[in-house]
């Protein structure tokens, strides 16, 4: 099967911060979509987070975006900017897709 090269971004952010990121992604016409997955814990520079029962204040999510290399770089910079002092990490990696028009 012939495949096309794209980039894959993974953004781990606090659930309460996700709408700001998604709003950015939805406003960027070159990005055709995203997928959001729930996390059940994490550790980083701001300490360990585990499920907290009644409060969802510390919940995080992982947002997956597949797009072209150029857009991926631009988006990575923009998202890191949006994160400011907020908690979060952004990862980029290579990915191949079969339907190039889709991404």
């Amino acid at each position: 099967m012939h495949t096309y090269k794209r980039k894959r971004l993974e953004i781990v952010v606090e659930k309460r911060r996700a709408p700001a990121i998604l709003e950015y992604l939805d406003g960027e016409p070159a990005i055709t979509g995203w997928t959001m997955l729930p996390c059940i814990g994490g550790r980083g520079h701001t300490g360990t987070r585990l499920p907290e029962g009644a409060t969802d204040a510390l919940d995080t999510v992982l947002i997956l975006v597949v797009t072209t290399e150029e857009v991926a770089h631009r988006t990575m910079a923009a998202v890191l900017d949006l994160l400011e002092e907020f908690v979060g990490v952004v990862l980029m990696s290579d990915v191949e897709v079969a339907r190039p028009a889709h991404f």
Partner: protein
Amino acid sequence: MDVAAANLLSPPVLCFLLGLVAGIVRSDLEIPEAVARALAVYLIFSIGFKGGVELANNGDLGALVPLLLVAAALSLLLPVPAFVLLRLLANVNRIDAGAIAAHYGSVSIVTYVAATSFLQSRGIAYEGFMTAVVAVMETPAILTGLLLARAGQRGALDSRRRWELAHEIFANGSVVLLLGSFAIGFVTGAEGMRRLAPVVTNGFTGLLCFFLLDMGLLVARRFAGFRTMGAGLVLFGVLMPLVGASAGLTAGLFLGLSVGGTALLATLAGSASYIAVPAAMRLALPRANPSLSLSLALGITFPFNLVLGIPLYVAVAERFSGWWEVWRAYLQT
């Protein structure tokens, strides 16, 4: 003593202790998060609704306005001694101290619920509008905590962030739910109660038990973090509720609240938020360490209040109730 035993041997407190023990022995006992969150919604809705119905039934609103003002003032001011104590007792940075102070100025709804449940089981009456006090005390502390954390810092919040924060404060889920259910109770009154009583009243203690079981498990998980926390912080966690409760007691006596009402105001002032404020802090002070404030509020102050504080506040309220009138009478002679 008797009061303390009665509290300790009530099903809700025993369920909390069961969760605590299960957590300490690292049992795999678990209440799924989704259910714990739904139980929180249920508890908040129930106390709001019942408060509203009560207000509709015995509409003596005379004492309400001064009480709400005093309560808001307590929430606004209590972060100050909390902040000072934190800086004195423990080596906590400005931002974390501000965040923690906000938690302690605000209130813990579950602690309040446990206190009302205890009062009811003892047959001690309290003002129906106390629920409005809970709503009023939830958020002012966030402002003070934020100011304390940011004092002397370069930039203020930019306007976008300021707007986000204002929104977080006023549209906070537990505030909206509490006020909304209060209004629904007030509007539907006795007829509404007749229809909802099986859920909001009959089921209350049982569901509170399950919620507190989960709280016990969470508190035990927090214990692990204490080693790294230092004695100063732990001390703060038991001292601050006493400071807050004293302020609440004084205010309650001063306002001429009933014994139950005074004990509840003390409980509120002495409790620390772990639903509304942690959420707001993620936007207001994202750099603050959430583990620290949650470990204190949930790991130390909550169990302290639940097991020792509540009966203490009730006993003191019973002891001193009426003193104010006596004193006023004395002054007037």
